[in-house]
């Protein structure tokens, strides 16, 4: 009886994760597309050196950070995927969303300060601990770079 209850609990959590997680993800992706479009005039590069002829007025550090949660369905799907091997699509989209969100926040900061170029962009990612061992609860991403105001 108790086993059945636990099983039912897990199945319903997976279903809730699937439905709610999908909805949250779709909304986030739509939102990201709009914001990325609005910030397209800010260029980024991860070069260490700039072309020498670029006249720069001001240079300063800009950063973007975000922590995104894993949903229950993703945890479940990745467990299955671990049995069969192959690409973990559920985690790939989670990482992608976190990186794009952090990038958007950094670009917004640069844009608000009047910079049009962010140079030497670097990403830093860390895994957040979840409830269960070896299962990530989510990811955190920091992206940073040097914003340039050109003359």
């Amino acid at each position, binding site marked *: 009886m108790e086993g059945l209850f636990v099983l039912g609990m897990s199945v319903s959590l997976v279903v809730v994760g699937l439905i709610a997680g999908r909805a949250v993800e779709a909304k986030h992706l739509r939102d990201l597309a709009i914001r990325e479009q609005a910030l397209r005039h800010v260029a980024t590069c991860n070069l260490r050196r700039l072309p020498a002829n670029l006249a720069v007025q001001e240079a300063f550090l800009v950063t973007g950070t975000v922590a995104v949660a894993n949903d229950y369905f993703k945890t479940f799907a990745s467990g299955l995927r671990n049995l069969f091997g192959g690409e973990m699509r559920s985690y790939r989209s989670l990482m992608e969303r976190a990186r794009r969100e952090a990038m958007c926040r950094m670009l917004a900061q640069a844009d608000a300060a009047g910079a049009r170029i962010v140079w030497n962009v670097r990403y830093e990612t860390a895994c957040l601990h979840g409830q269960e061992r070896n299962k990530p609860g989510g990811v955190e991403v920091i992206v940073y770079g040097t914003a*340039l105001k050109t003359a």
Partner: protein
Amino acid sequence: MIVVNTEYIPGKRIVAIKGLVQGNTVRAKHIGKDIGASLKNIVGGELKGYTELLVESRREALSRMLAQAEELGCNAVVNVRFATSSITSGAAELYCYGTAVVVEEAPAPGGTV
């Protein structure tokens, strides 16, 4: 204080290198936020409490690094890098480091060192 993550500052010339400066912090959120985050783990979405934690940690680590640079009499920190690690559940370490330097205006516009 000029802070950049590049090796040089456009339009400025590095006249003295004072060495590595660093700042770190390990912060946690109160249990309420942790419970909220574990509920978020069912449906997914942004962990606002943890994002806030990251922002605070970044500020704290940066300000510790800048305090060190100021002590050394520098007016800029170049080549800044961030690193993170999860120490224990519900807490994050944020570490930042860079090279403290003294810069002055470069004579040529857009000149580099």
